[in-house]
């Protein structure tokens, strides 16, 4: 019997990413470098196994902390970006500019706040600046959507324009410098806690909830899937393909803006030169790991969230095991190749052709 059939149909696409996350968590029970050292015959004082990774402590001010919580905090930007990216990929497009929009949003909010007096800035002005930044990222998304749906430029090319130019815009906004943010009420967006849970996690949760309600409780999600499945057929049944396309790119831009603002608040600064570099690739990877095909059609928002969590767990595991940040990219590349292979029908059939033979023999 196929073990997959025990799992409810709606949850099947997240089985693989969840299993991979669990595997990584199990790996973190062991201290790999200590095990390697003891296998090499060296004396080591460190315990070979510990549950240190799973420590979640509640400190005096009622804030949760621990490695697992920091995965959620650091993974929040990929998760928010992946939510927007899922919709774009569902229509058969791709948005390469989210890293640039992410950087622009951080730069814009930092540039706005730098104009204010840190001590005497009222919360209404701060809210105005945040809303203005969100509007800007929405407009950047609409621009992408305009290129794709009205000028009929391929998505990779259309969003590539903003990917190249966007970082320049962020650098101009901050004059090429790192700009520090001092307003405590704004920093709470990234560093604050509500009910002991960090703010970025709340942001992810509310974005996720809003997106799921917007797409799954209305016909919008169905329209998005229809456009991704077959554009001309959707057009003939009366779906406004152009409007849907502009909507998904605008939504993706908005998500990138939200992530950029929260990240700027978390970092207490905006670095226009490096923030969000190659982040679009992480977001796309998260969506692909989550089971949404790059050709478009069906989409799985929860799958993308799991994909983003997997990427961040991988990053954290490498650092937690003390391997140094230089191993992150290398390991990530191997994960992409594995994901490619697992999803490839050719690879699956050639793998499956081995299995039954063994059973028969």
């Amino acid at each position, binding site marked *: 019997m196929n073990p997959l059939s025990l799992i409810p149909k709606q949850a099947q696409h997240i089985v693989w990413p969840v299993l991979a996350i669990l595997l990584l968590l199990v790996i973190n029970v062991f201290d790999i470098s200590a095990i390697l050292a003891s296998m090499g015959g060296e004396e080591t004082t460190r315990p070979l196994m510990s549950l240190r990774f799973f420590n979640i402590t509640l400190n005096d001010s009622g804030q949760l902390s621990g490695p697992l919580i920091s995965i959620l905090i650091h993974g929040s930007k990929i998760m928010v970006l992946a939510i927007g990216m899922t919709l774009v990929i569902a229509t058969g497009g791709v948005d390469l500019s989210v890293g640039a929009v992410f950087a622009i949003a951080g730069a814009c909010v930092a540039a706005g706040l730098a104009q204010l007096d840190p001590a005497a800035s009222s919360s209404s002005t701060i809210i105005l600046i945040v809303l203005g930044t969100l509007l800007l990222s929405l407009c950047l998304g609409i621009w992408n959507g305009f290129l794709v749906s009205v000028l009929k430029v391929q998505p990779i090319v259309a969003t590539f324009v903003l990917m190249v130019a966007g970082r320049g815009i962020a650098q101009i906004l901050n004059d*090429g410098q790192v700009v520090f943010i001092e307003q405590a009420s704004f920093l709470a967006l990234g560093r604050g806690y509500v009910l002991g849970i960090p703010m970025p996690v709340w942001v992810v949760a509310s974005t996720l909830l809003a997106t799921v309600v917007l797409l799954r409780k209305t016909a919008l999600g169905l329209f998005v899937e229809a456009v991704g499945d077959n554009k001309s057929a959707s057009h003939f049944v009366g779906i406004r393909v152009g409007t849907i396309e502009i909507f998904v790119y605008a939504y993706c831009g908005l998500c990138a803006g939200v992530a950029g603002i929260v990240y700027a608040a978390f970092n207490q600064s905006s670095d226009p030169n490096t923030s969000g570099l190659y982040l679009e690739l992480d977001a796309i990877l998260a969506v692909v790991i989550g089971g949404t095909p790059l050709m478009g059609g069906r989409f799985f928002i929860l799958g993308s969230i799991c994909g983003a969590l997997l990427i961040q767990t991988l990053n954290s595991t490498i650092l937690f095991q003390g391997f140094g940040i230089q191993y992150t990219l*290398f390991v990530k590349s191997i994960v*992409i190749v594995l994901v490619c292979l697992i999803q490839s029908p050719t*690879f699956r059939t050639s793998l499956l052709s081995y299995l039954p033979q063994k059973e028969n023999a």
Partner: protein
Amino acid sequence: MKKLSANTLTLGATAGILLLLYAIASVRFSDQYFFTASAFMNLLTGNAHLFIIAIGMTFVILSGGIDLSVGATLCLTTVVAAKLLQIEGISFPLVVFLSLSLGTSLGAGMGVLIHVFKQAPFLVTLAGMFFARGLAQIISLESIPVKHSGYSALQDWYVFMPDWSGKSGLAYFDGPAITVVHILIVIVLLISLTIAHCTNFGRNVYAIGGNEVSAEMMQVPIGKTKVLIYALSGFCASLAGLVFLINVPSGNAAHGLALELDAIAAVVIGGTLLSGGCGSMLGTLMGVLIFGIVQMAIRFEPGIGSYWTRIILGLLFLTFIVLQRTLSRIVNE
């Protein structure tokens, strides 16, 4: 014939924009010796690695694919070559051979993944990018200096040439000179033109980019060609890495960051359609020169930060896409 005329039109537009930009910059920066042979040769030297990468990228884009890994392959090549050159008594040709085969095999590997497992080129080359840069970071996070007699011989060789502006001896060094890098540029251009227009492989690349299904029906060896295309792109990227080491004598895991974006932009500005099947190597040379002139002009212009380069590049890119779409629509009607 229709496609050919659209091709010629875009190539003409690129040449026009290149001449216009060069003329404007020459007038605007005449007191900074922009219109001198020295400045022009420097322009070529500074963008040689970009040009070589862009040639490989042109083949990839002509076939309808994309290669995001080239910047990282360049970076990996500089690091590996620098590391190898530190070994006492290693022969220089051996290092060159090893470096070039590294990039080529990386590219071929990606080509196999793309063709055999039917994966999106974009995703596979992304993995290649992470792989190459990650490997470079694992080898060394520090910069590795290159002090090898082979490289100093390459750096020191040059021949003086006459200056067309009559201002020789005033610019950056004793006068305009032809260096190894310039000779390499010419060789790469000639070889790539030959490959693209005089070989079966070149014709197959155009055929696959034009329409993969009909190419397959006409017995074009899709798999072999695709693997070769990505291997060629990897070869170009590692050759560019070796050229990069002539200009910047150090191997560093941070070299060539976002270079793939510059290369793609230069190829498209050079008139190659991103959907494949239409474009030329000469156009790519012009695209790289446009990129170089914009970069140089921004460096000369007082009061403008270097970050304007990317914005202007983005705008040029956009202009060209819109131009290509309009032109092909007009030609098709």
